[in-house]
């Protein structure tokens, strides 16, 4: 009986260790691969084009679309490079909204990348040579996350200061609501 218990405990411990060993921290890439000698150089206004598809393809392994770190970097850059100036936090304004399901120039990461890199008619400026390519991929990933096109696990939440209600930790304690009648009646 006792040896069974010991065996069970040992196996359980092994199982826990084995599960823990499979955990790995998402790698963060600080030194980005060098730009692939400017393969992206075509001016392209429409998704329609003769021959092979010329939309730039995201880097291999979808490293920017499936990494929570890259998407949160994109969120930071989206504010820092003043994308909010026209697109707000996805709701649009001077520029079109980004959190809805209408994509004028396509919803693929490559489409968003192209839009940022070469600009679009009616106001979207080109950021080629201004924003490094890897950061454009990060911003593209964040833009897609706003429309819910990325897995939930990597999509960042809305910034705290944008919440309609302040977070629970910063609100004063409140009495529970919804209780009707006095305590005596319940007894």
């Amino acid at each position, binding site marked *: 009986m006792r040896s069974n218990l010991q065996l069970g405990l040992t196996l359980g411990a092994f199982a826990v260790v084995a599960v823990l060993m499979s955990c790995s921290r998402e790698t*963060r890439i*600080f*030194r*980005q691969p*060098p*730009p692939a000698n400017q393969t992206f150089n075509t001016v392209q206004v429409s998704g329609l084009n003769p021959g092979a598809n010329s939309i730039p393809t995201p880097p291999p392994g979808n490293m920017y679309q499936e990494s929570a770190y890259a998407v949160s970097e994109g969120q930071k850059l989206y504010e*820092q*490079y003043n994308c909010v100036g026209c697109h707000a936090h996805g709701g649009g304004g001077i520029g079109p909204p980004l959190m809805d399901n209408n994509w004028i120039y396509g919803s693929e990461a490559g489409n968003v990348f192209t839009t940022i890199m070469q600009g679009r008619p009616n106001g979207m400026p080109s950021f080629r*040579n*201004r*924003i*490094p390519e*890897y*950061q454009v991929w990060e911003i593209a990933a964040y833009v897609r996350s706003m429309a819910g096109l990325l897995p939930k696990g990597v999509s960042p939440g809305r910034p705290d200061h944008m919440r309609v209600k302040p977070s629970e930790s910063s609100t004063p304690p409140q009495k529970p609501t919804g209780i009707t009648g006095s305590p005596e009646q319940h007894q």
Partner: protein
Amino acid sequence: MMPRLFLLAQAMPLDPGGHNILHPAAPQGGHIEWLYWVIFWICFVVYVLMIIGYTRAAAKSKSDAIYPLPVFEDKEGDQRAKWAVGTAVAVTVVTLFVVLVLSVVTGKKAAGLSSKNPVTIQIIGHQWWWEVVYPNPQADQTVTTANEIHVPVNTPVVVLTNSTDVIHSFWAPNITGKRDLLPGYSSAFWFNIQQPGTYRGQCAEFCGLQHAHMGFSIIAQSVDDFQAWEQQQLKPAPEPTNDETKRGREVFLTRACLMCHTIRGTDAGARMGPDLTHLASRNMIAAETLPNTRGALAGWILDPQRIKPGAEMSPNSLAPDDLQALLAYLQTLQ
């Protein structure tokens, strides 16, 4: 061995005068140094007494003790032991209270000195550098710089703190104690440096990957020198004079630089990175990480992620001619 030691001594000066609480240069730092020595001597006396006590006890004990020790009653001895332990506890508690009171008094003293006609500086923590603003009601008289804080000596300097991202802590050991920089919350403290000199400071609150490379320096100058510096900083960037520097400015304004940096007098006006209007007037770059030389600047521009992994600055691939022109231009920004 000797030459190696010599090299070590050269690389690491034995007297870290610019980053040392034991060389205070301001009355605030002086109070803190005084408290340091008081606590040091109290601890020293306690240590010596403990060692004497242990030594005496060790000398008295007999090595031929019988085990198990015989149990015997010694009422008088118990009484003496009670007194000894009671007295020791009382002395400890009293000493700790004295230290507590002295700490509070020192804190009050350091914070409560009178400040008249101060110079006001706004210090804003960023991951991982310090933005330094000398605010002025007239917007065009406001000086903005980074990481090198120029202050006049014998003048109260009021520092308003803030942070843009996480909590940082401003700590210049020669000057005063640590002050946290909290995001979205401005607090104030002040100091008054009495000896001209350069004092090093460091972020003292862990703030992310490059916390250790988030240094700053305080340069205390005579009032005249400080005003001359301020007047120089108020000027816009000088116009490039030759073809190379003109091209350098062109590179700055057409590449990623202008997305984050300001050079007053040009179209570059972004506020994400340090203001570079007078970059060449600073001694160090990258928050006291590298000397401000042409080579270090080139390395920093090309691959900052090797020097400070995780820093906000992105690597830049520039053609050699463009890089040289850019460096030539940046070095004219006196």
